[in-house]
């Protein structure tokens, strides 16, 4: 989901090149266990997610979600006739270098499927590592178009993409009849992806008018410039596609400046902190977001299981990570082996596998055929499901 700055990406790609060569030779020296099929012992799933840094809370949600699925599958007898699953979790810290080192580690420890990936900027440089080892990747959260843009056979995304998010945003604008809109991003790839895509879809559609498409610099406190620009155009809806920290400040400052239109944020801003930072002004703010356990219908039993196992509430991307592990187990079962090529074939062939986001069938570019984005609204200080699109 997250996407670092351009520099981080370039740096990441550069270091990925260096590290992936090193990773390969390491794999050979250690007996070639990486990516080759195993016939006995546990079946290892690698999970590279942020466990430190500002995205650490989400990493913990993902790790728990995945662990829950692993435990359930093992209890039910494991895969491939009684072999247990084992989850190898490593930290990516939302940082390209760290992610590359961690990916190499899980590859050398013999993971047969990768079920991690939260920050797109940190996940991108790990693609060649898993690809060289011929390990299929089921990415639960990271959703930049660039992850699938290279057309790698082993990469599968089970979170909606920026494109699908834009489609949902536009559908909401039309349905709630907002005639004019201002698009604001924070100049990072993830955020800009959504505003650019939304703008082009709006232009194709023609029923909504974009009055303003601008960017702010992340990490500042004063956003009076963008607030002034928005106030002078006076759009019916402001769509912010960056993260919650700046989002909260912008909402707060817009309200202080007397803005009366509606505000909508993208999935990077859906966090309880947004409400804390924005204060009173957060009430009634809309968001485009994939389903979280809180908003899913019929997830109560699953939430109860999660709480019983980890003594805490599930959070964003718990369900996707849970599904990623189940999907991996299903594909391994279908393939009848832990060989990368077989699992990839099985994944591509899956049709109608039941997940939280609905029945699964991958598109030809290995993304979900429907993104599963919904509209949330802040009510009583919490993000709740809005039925605007249903």
């Amino acid at each position, binding site marked *: 989901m997250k996407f670092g700055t351009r520099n981080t990406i370039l740096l990441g790609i550069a270091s990925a090149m260096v590290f992936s060569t090193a990773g390969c030779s390491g794999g050979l020296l250690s007996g070639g266990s990486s990516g080759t099929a195993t016939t006995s012992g546990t079946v290892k799933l690698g999970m590279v997610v942020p466990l430190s840094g500002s995205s650490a809370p989400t990493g913990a949600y993902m790790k728990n979600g995945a662990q829950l699925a692993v435990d359930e599958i093992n209890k039910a007898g494991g895969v491939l006739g009684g072999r247990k699953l084992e989850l190898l979790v490593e930290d990516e810290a939302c940082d390209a270098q760290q992610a590359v080192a961690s990916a190499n580690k899980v590859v050398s420890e013999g993971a047969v499927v990768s079920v991690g990936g939260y920050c797109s900027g940190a996940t991108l440089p790990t693609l060649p590592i898993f690809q060289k080892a011929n390990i299929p990747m089921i990415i639960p959260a990271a959703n930049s178009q660039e992850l699938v843009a290279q057309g790698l056979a082993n990469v599968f995304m089970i979170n909606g993409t920026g494109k699908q998010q834009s489609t949902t945003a536009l559908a909401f604008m039309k349905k709630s009849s907002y005639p004019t809109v201002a698009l604001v991003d924070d100049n990072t790839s993830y955020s800009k992806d959504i505003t650019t895509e939304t703008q082009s879809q709006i232009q194709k559609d023609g029923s909504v008018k974009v009055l303003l498409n601008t*960017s*702010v610099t992340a990490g500042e*406190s004063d956003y009076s*410039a963008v607030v002034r*620009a928005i106030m002078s155009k006076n759009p019916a809806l402001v769509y912010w596609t960056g993260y919650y*920290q700046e989002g*909260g400040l912008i909402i707060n400052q817009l309200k202080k400046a*007397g803005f009366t239109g509606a505000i909508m944020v993208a999935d990077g801003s859906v966090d309880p*902190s947004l409400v804390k930072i924005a*204060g009173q002004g957060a009430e009634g703010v809309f968001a485009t977001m994939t389903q979280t356990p809180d908003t899913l219908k019929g997830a109560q039993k699953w939430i109860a299981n999660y709480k019983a196992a980890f003594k805490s509430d599930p959070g964003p991307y718990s369900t996707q990570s849970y599904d990623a592990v189940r999907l991996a187990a299903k594909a391994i079962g279908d393939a009848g082996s832990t060989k990368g090529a077989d699992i990839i074939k099985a994944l591509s062939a899956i049709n109608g596998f039941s997940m939280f986001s609905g029945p699964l069938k991958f598109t030809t570019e290995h993304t979900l055929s429907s993104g599963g984005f919904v509209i949330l609204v802040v009510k009583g200080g919490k993000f709740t499901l809005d039925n605007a699109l249903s």
Partner: protein
Amino acid sequence: MTQLIWDGLFVGSFYALIALGYSMVYGIIKLLNFAHGDIYMLGAFIGFALLTSLGGIPGSLSLVALLGVLLVSMLLTGSAGVLIERLAYRPLRGAPRLAALITAVGVSFSLEYGVSAIAGPNPRAFPVRLEGGVFQVLGARISLPQIILMLIAAGLMIALNTYIQRTSTGRAMRSIALDTNASLLMGINVNAVITRTFFIGSALAGAAGVMAGAYYGQIDFLMGFIIGLKAFTAAVIGGIGNIKGAMLGGLVLGFVEAFGTQWFGGQWRDVFAFAVLILFLTLRPTGILGERVTERM
């Protein structure tokens, strides 16, 4: 138009408060204290910790509580500045300037990631928020909190100016800025004066940090980075080493940003601010009020 001027003035007064510390330290020991922006961050976090420990404060008392916290935070950040000077900069007093500069960058990172390790890397919402009425003045929206904060900023700057112009310590500061060795020969306790300079500069930055937290409502451990660079820019614009220049530079930078973004769009704000820095460094490195600096041995 009036809105632009007001917004520029408001943001500019924050820049000015922080720029003062940059300028004072540079004026006296010729050190670019890049950790100064992080003192601002430290002030915000100290204010956060104090207000959180006070617990629930009724709305009517929030301004009083905030002023009290502001004072205590200033004392603590001032002391932190003194400590940093004593531990990191004084041992390098005779070393080449580059060594001191790199130490300053190191101190900056230590502060940022030290706070991140203690308080956590996630942004925090400030417990007390300044809310208040809004007035329409000549077409600009001016809020009561903005007025209060600008009055505090102006008060601090006037007090500083009086202190430097009227007291003997102030005179000592000015004389050290002119010639350290001669001041030493005249019996001025140079180290004590430098300590005091760091205290005052850091206290002002800490005050700005608490004020920013209370006004914008959110703080995080990297909040001092960009504003530190902006304050440095403001100090250069006004003439680094010059107290009045720092105040003027802060306001000028606020205006430049407000008008620049109006004409070129919000995404150009920082490009504009730092382009002005480069322009000044090439065309008029002494800034608006700076005097020609001669190299001393």
